């Protein structure tokens, strides 16, 4: 079990190219995140929890889908940690598992309105489904 | 370890300010290492000319190690940085000529690292001993 966890952490770090050890815990990512209030775990916690290998709660959390990929945390991080990339790698790890799609194509028609641009739909599919 | 007759001859160039002092500290603490290691004192590792290393091999050394201050701690501020580049290139060239890479080494040993000095020398002597006699740089010399 321990081993699987280690492997998963390693894979997430490889996918994202993020080194969470660079984090100096300043919390600027969380200070800047526009989705902070919607999240259960916040950007700085993502970084810390990945570093300590505490992946389960993160992968089960809805917070993964609250990230807007706006990259404000990436650009403002003084340590170049790039939390958004880490969140993306976690999200991909979850949705790549069979049956774990967060957004099912069948659900989409109900979410649409006349004005909704295609861009929104493809983006959401990329972010929420595999 | 099995006892064998073969004893490698190792020349260690040590900079006066860090590594030579580190070797002294190993002595103060009675940390032993093989007597095959013979130290030559130089003011700075950057004084070590590749010609000295080749000459040592020519005359029968089996391994040559250069010890200097840790990068950033050089008594002369930058000497060991030059050593690092020179030796990186020289060692890579020796390897290119088919000389075993384990026969040459650079190690940074500070004046406080007596234990590291002894460990390094033990390890290096063991590595060189495992390779056996240095034939590649020595062999053809007049077949004596």
């Amino acid at each position, binding site marked *: 079990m321990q081993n699987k966890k280690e492997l998963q952490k390693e894979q997430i770090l490889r996918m994202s190219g993020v080194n969470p050890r660079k984090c*100096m*815990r*300043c*919390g*600027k*990512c*969380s*200070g*800047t*995140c526009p989705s*902070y*209030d919607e999240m259960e775990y*916040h950007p*700085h916690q993502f970084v810390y929890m990945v570093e300590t290998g505490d992946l389960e709660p993160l992968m089960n959390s809805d917070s993964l889908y609250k990230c807007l990929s706006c990259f*404000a945390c990436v650009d*403002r*991080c*003084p*340590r*170049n*940690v790039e939390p958004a990339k880490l969140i993306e790698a976690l999200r991909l790890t979850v949705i790549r598992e069979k049956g774990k799609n967060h957004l099912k194509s069948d659900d989409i028609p109900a979410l649409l309105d006349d004005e909704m641009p295609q861009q929104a739909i493809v983006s959401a599919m990329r972010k929420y489904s595999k | 370890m099995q006892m064998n007759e073969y004893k490698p*001859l190792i*020349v260690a160039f040590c900079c*006066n300010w860090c590594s*030579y*002092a580190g*070797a*002294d500290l*190993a*002595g*103060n603490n*009675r940390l*032993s*290492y093989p*007597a095959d290691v*013979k*130290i*030559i*004192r*130089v*003011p*700075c590792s*950057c*004084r*070590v*000319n590749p*010609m*000295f290393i080749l*000459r*040592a091999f020519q*005359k*029968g*050394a089996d391994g040559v190690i250069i010890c200097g201050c840790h990068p950033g*701690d050089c*008594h*002369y*501020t930058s*000497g060991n940085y*030059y050593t690092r580049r020179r030796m990186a290139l020289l060692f890579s060239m020796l390897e290119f000529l088919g000389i075993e890479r384990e026969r040459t080494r650079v190690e940074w040993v500070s004046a406080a690292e007596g234990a590291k000095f*002894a460990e390094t020398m033990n390890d290096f002597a063991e590595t060189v001993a495992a390779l056996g006699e240095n034939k590649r740089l020595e062999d053809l010399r007049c077949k004596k």
Partner: protein
Amino acid sequence: MQRIGVFVCHCGTNIAGTVDVKAVAEALKFEPGVVVSTDYQYMCSQAGQEMIKEAIIENKLTGIVVCSCSPRMHEATFRKTAAAAGLNPYMVEIANIREQCSWVHKDIPTGTEKAIILGKAAIAKVNLNAPLTPGESPVTKRALVIGGGIAGIQTALDIADAGFPVDIVETKPTIGGKMAQLDKTFPTLDCAACILTPKMVDVATNDKIRIFSYSEVSEVNGFVGNFDVTIKRRARYVKEDICTGCGLCTEKCPQKKVPNEFNLNMDNRRAIYIPFAQAVPKVATIDPESCTMLKTGKCGVCSKVCTVGAIDYNAKDEFITEKYGAIVVATGFNPISMDKFDEYAYSQSKDVITSLELERLMNAAGPTGGTLLRPSDGEHPHTIVFVQCVGSRCDSCAEKGKEYCSKICCMYTAKHAMLIRDKYPDTDVYVFYIDVRTPGKNFDEFYRRAVEEYGVHYIKGMVGKVSPEGGKLKVRASDLIDGKQLNIDADLVVLAAAIEPDKSARPLATMLTASMDTNDFFTEAHPKLRPVESPTAGVYLSGTCQGPKDIPETVSQAGAAASMVIALLCKDKLTGNPCVAHSDEMMCNGCSTCEKVCPYGAITYIDKEFRMPDRTTKVRRVAQVNEAVCQGCGACTVACMSGAMDLKGFTNKQIFAEVDAICK
């Protein structure tokens, strides 16, 4: 052929316990050049030394080898012994048969065998030794201090106090530096001007000190003890010796809209100005960029009102050259530009300021007369947010900011927060921090007082964005301990901008051949043991040019630098290390390769005329080593492909001989 004596020490049982010293002495007897070889209980003892001296005289020895403890222990002792017997001290070699033999090897055969080899190597070397005499050079008994901030002022005062003349070169019209701009100082809260200006006056009145203000160093030649420095005295269009500093011109000048850099451009000065009331020298300066007279030839008001006729519109830059024995660098720091941190809206709102700007806003001589008012509307701010570490502690890949901790921000922010809460108790003060770093005497106590007595809100977390909305500054930040994102409507945001070395430092370092780190701080000769010296002999470091520091640290370093300078200037002559590089001119190609690796700038090139065998002459470029500057590292000897460059005391031939002796 040398006549060599070998002296094997027992060191009680320290050596003799594992090495058969008699066998060693016996074996070494037959080495080339050896005429006497003997052993003794303690060579370093009075009796041992006497024995060596007698042997030298009796056998007319030209060199000796002492097989004993480490040369780091007793090389100096035995050199003195040799010198006392009339032998050149550099004809002594030590074979280290204690630390590197008897103490690390177990059995007598092994120890003895190795001791003999080490002895042979030392003999082989001493066979090739040549007597060396340390070079001597005279010392010019005057020091130059570059930079007139508190570091430069303190250094100059201390040197002058020892009786040596000192010149201060300062680029600004006045000395005083950053400290002159500060309001109060931590952790005592005494007023900066009250403790600085008396020192400035001391400088002005000290007849050993000359101030070259509004000047810069333009060229440095020479070496320790003998620097030739050219100083550019920029035209200030006011005759310094005549101007009385009455200030009338600065009141009458019609050009009123020149941003006042002393107040960080938060108010205006005239085109002719005296930076502040206590300026030293207290003379006016015309800023040629803004002066109508200098730009168009029309105006001349200052000249008309000046009662002593000090104005000179035709003044030109002047260059003076002076000799110095030592140079102290005290070029100081500046806060970094906030351009790359506009998430804090520095460029978008006047109410986002740096801490140095806050100093001026709180200073009685500042633009608001010491009342803390918002720059945008002149109102009292009621909520103030301090942001720590702006541009400090950044990862190099982030491509903005500095990697280091600026060191002073935690403390001055605590000071600001405390002073504000003290003077305006109805103000809410928030400090967003990553860590609070307070290692210093009374520092943590000071910070705790800010929290406990003054009720400053310290919040662990960073500000992510500052948004100027509706006359307020909306501050979005994280509170990591409470696990909340905070939104604070602030009236004033103060950024603790990282500090960086003054821009003049880099070109100066090149002129001085003094090394710098990647951040443009000057490198010290040794980070622990020689912290106020540059590796370049005769160049000393004072204050923040070497790294971030607060005032007490700066002043102690300034004093330390001064004492190093005094120790140097006290000497009539400098004795060098004779183990220095030497270039064989006949072999030198003049290719400049050695110069590139010399960390001290000790190598220069001259065109030298050589007489050829056919009686013609030939001019060639050849390297010359300045023995007073060379420290003897030997980097140049390996860079030199022709072997023209060699190191005395560690020559190629000597090292080859040692290698040969060991490998035989």
